């Protein structure tokens, strides 16, 4: 890449600090001409920042690498995303990127069940959370605050044998909601709650370090956020931005994600230690565009059931 893209690239990412640094460093190794400036924060904070910047008339980011596709859909609907028609999406499963080429999944962060190893019951199905053993001891992230939880809810509602009734039964069984996944992990690890609906990598990492938690992929399947990446149409350096996306979607980029402890989105790339092979994991299907449309209603339903 002697005469590859050059210039400054501003990346807003919700990746963890260390992961974001690795990713950027790896990209820069391949594209020495590009200088990447990145801002790391939670998806909500990043979106607040971006919203305010848009309202002030000057969005700063070129690239957005955030937790979920629903948010991307909303930006797409507002016509704020640039279409990258010839992105290298060969080999990717359909549904993990926008057919119009505005956003692309970079990994799979699934939502399953974590439990405290001291718990009397080892769950294997979502329905196990409705058992008496789980009464009052389950915690899940609130879709009102967490993007992953919102997608999980959208996916669960599409499942015929779960649906909204599942949430109602969870409520009846004393399940509570928390703001984010970090809090769920702490609740379960500390034994304050025994079961938690949570993204995969947190408990799997902690379990490896010896924490009294374990993670299961329930047999009905898991929902997944795909940590999609997209280019804002106000980007001042679309060439470099496209190069960044190309890097993330490349085999090399996917192997990096796996090394960081995430399930790669590209089938065929080896999963990280502690994860089952991708083929053993079934994903509950959902439609991001529909999720966006139903978002308000879902949140209202959730708030009606769980408050907060």
């Amino acid at each position, binding site marked *: 890449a002697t005469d590859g893209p050059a210039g400054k690239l501003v990346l807003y990412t919700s990746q963890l600090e260390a992961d974001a640094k690795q990713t950027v460093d790896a990209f820069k190794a391949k594209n020495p001409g590009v200088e990447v400036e990145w801002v790391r*924060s939670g998806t909500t904070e990043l979106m607040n920042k971006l919203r*305010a910047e848009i309202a002030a008339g000057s969005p700063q980011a070129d690239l957005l690498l955030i937790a979920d596709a629903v948010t991307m859909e*909303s930006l797409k609907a507002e016509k704020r995303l640039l279409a990258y028609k010839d992105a290298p999406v060969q080999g990717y499963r359909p549904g993990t990127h926008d057919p119009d080429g505005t956003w692309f999944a970079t990994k799979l962060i699934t939502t399953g069940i974590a439990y405290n190893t001291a718990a009397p019951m080892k769950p294997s199905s979502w329905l196990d959370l409705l058992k008496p053993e789980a009464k009052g*001891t389950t915690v899940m992230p609130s879709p009102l605050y967490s993007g992953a939880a919102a997608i999980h809810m959208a996916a669960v509602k599409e499942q015929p044998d779960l649906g909204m009734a599942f949430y109602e039964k969870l409520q009846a069984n004393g399940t*509570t909601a928390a703001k984010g996944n970090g809090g769920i992990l*702490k609740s379960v690890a500390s034994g*304050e709650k025994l079961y938690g609906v949570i993204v995969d990598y947190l408990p799997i*990492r902690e379990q490896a370090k010896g924490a009294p938690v374990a993670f299961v992929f329930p047999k009905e399947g898991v929902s997944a956020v795909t940590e999609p990446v997209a280019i804002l149409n106000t980007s001042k350096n679309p060439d470099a931005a496209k190069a960044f996306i190309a890097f993330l979607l490349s085999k090399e980029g996917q192997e990096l994600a796996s090394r960081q402890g995430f399930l790669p989105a590209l089938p065929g790339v080896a999963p990280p230690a502690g994860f089952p092979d991708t083929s053993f994991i079934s994903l509950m299907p959902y439609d991001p565009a529909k999720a966006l449309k139903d978002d308000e209603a879902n949140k209202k339903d959730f*708030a009606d059931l769980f408050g907060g």
Partner: protein
Amino acid sequence: MSLATLNDRRPFRAAGRFSVSGAPLLFALAGLIVLLPILRLVWEVAGPMAGGDLTALTRVLTSKMTWRATGNSVAIAAGATVVAAALGVPFALLCGLTDLRGKTALAFCLILPLMIPAQIVALSWIHLAGSGSPLLKPLGLAPAPGTPNPVYSSAGMILVMGIEHAPLVFLALRAALRAVPRDLVEAAQAAGARRGRVLRTIVLPLSLPGLAAGLALSFVAALGNFGVPALLGIPAGIPVLPTLIYRRLAGFGPSVLPEVAVLAVLIGAIACVGIAAQMALQARVDARVIGGSAPAAVLRLGRARRPLEILCWTVVALILAAPLAALASTSLIRVYGLPLGPETATLAHYATVLGLDQVGRAFTNSFVLSGVAALLLVLLAIPLAHAMAGPGKGGRLVRAVGVLIELPHAVPGVVLAIGCILVFLKPLPLLGVSLYGTLGIILAAYLARFLSLALRPAQAACAALDPAMEEAARACGAGPLRRLRTIVAPLVAPAAAAGGVLVFLTAFNELTVSILLWSQGRETLGVVVYALEEGGSPTLAAALSVVTIAVVVTVLLAVGWLGRRLPAGIIPWRG
């Protein structure tokens, strides 16, 4: 002071403070510039309304959730204020009025919760009360695994916020108690009144204005608190206005900003009601002390002293040491969730945390930000407070600005941060540079947010300033700015500096504003702790929190040590 002086003072207060009436206008303008971010948000509501567009307003005001959250907010803030009073009032009485030993240390410990970020305090309480409690578990007192943590409730929020804001009541009331002259108390004793009666009929009525100020501060602070309801209220399904705002922000769509602004203005309005109630109460009570400047009153505790001392330190241990210990033990556990014991303890998290290069940066940034903010605010507070004490139109205008400064203090930090982005993203007019992405924008936000902390003490000092001080300077030929620089500023400096110390300590751990405004390399301590916590590294977050608290305490002790020779009143916890 003779009667003649008293007579002279009152009427002449109103006379001839400024010959150049432009000066107060100038300072009012400076105040308004600092308040720009919040005014920009108010405009977000008022602008469309002026244009006849009421959609955001009606959408928010017709939502049931808005009113549910408002009800919760008011109830919880009121409850927290009651708890703060229940803690702050007895401690203020004991520290301000009696011969209790170790008052300075006690006051220091009581002020600490104010300096520790809300989310850390809330986390400590979750640790402490949960089934995994590192303290209660070994004692067999922890709730059984799987039973709900009792702090996830309205009561929990009220308790934690009450403890957090007790220092505000404590500080305000103790200052008022110090102003109760000894002879008023002794006159009551000579009239045959025992301690309890003296307290009830003389001391408390006289310090009511100070108490009211403390309660109002505590109420406003509880209203705008996000950290505690986020951690304790959401799991309990209890929405309050700040979490509702956060939730709106987490939603999508361009309608978010106006709606958030409406909610922020709603919080501001409730806060103003609180402040107005305080003012009404103060106006109704005439507690202006007449006559001599006798030393402050002291009540002898006699035989009750020892038991009271034990009780005080027990309470302090409960509200401060216990959660801190929980936090410390979390920071020492090899893996979160394991019981703390010799084989699970490690210092590795401290090594890890201190090795992170963003931690070093964050310490530097937070230090610079809070230091500069404290300094600038002290410099602004003095002329502003002075102008507010002045007469006429200029004074009235500045006083109006003085009410507005409560706003950025009362709204959740994230709202203020959005206001800052709206105002400072574009390059500044004339200068052509943008503050965005620099420490400058965080500084601007801090200036707006903490102006009221810096201004209030300076304002009290200016109001108490003998006008003859300035008149003497005028008779010596000194113009307004020279007088401000050479006479007023040095005289109110101790009070202003006390405000500065509070600003520094509060800003040092600030999270909710900087979380939106930081950028790579410009993270604050609060942001780094939060990132670790969110990233699923509670042990690292706990370690960094412990380091932060250690630094805060060190700074406090250093300030106290350096301030030994400073005039009374600068060091907040000093007697």
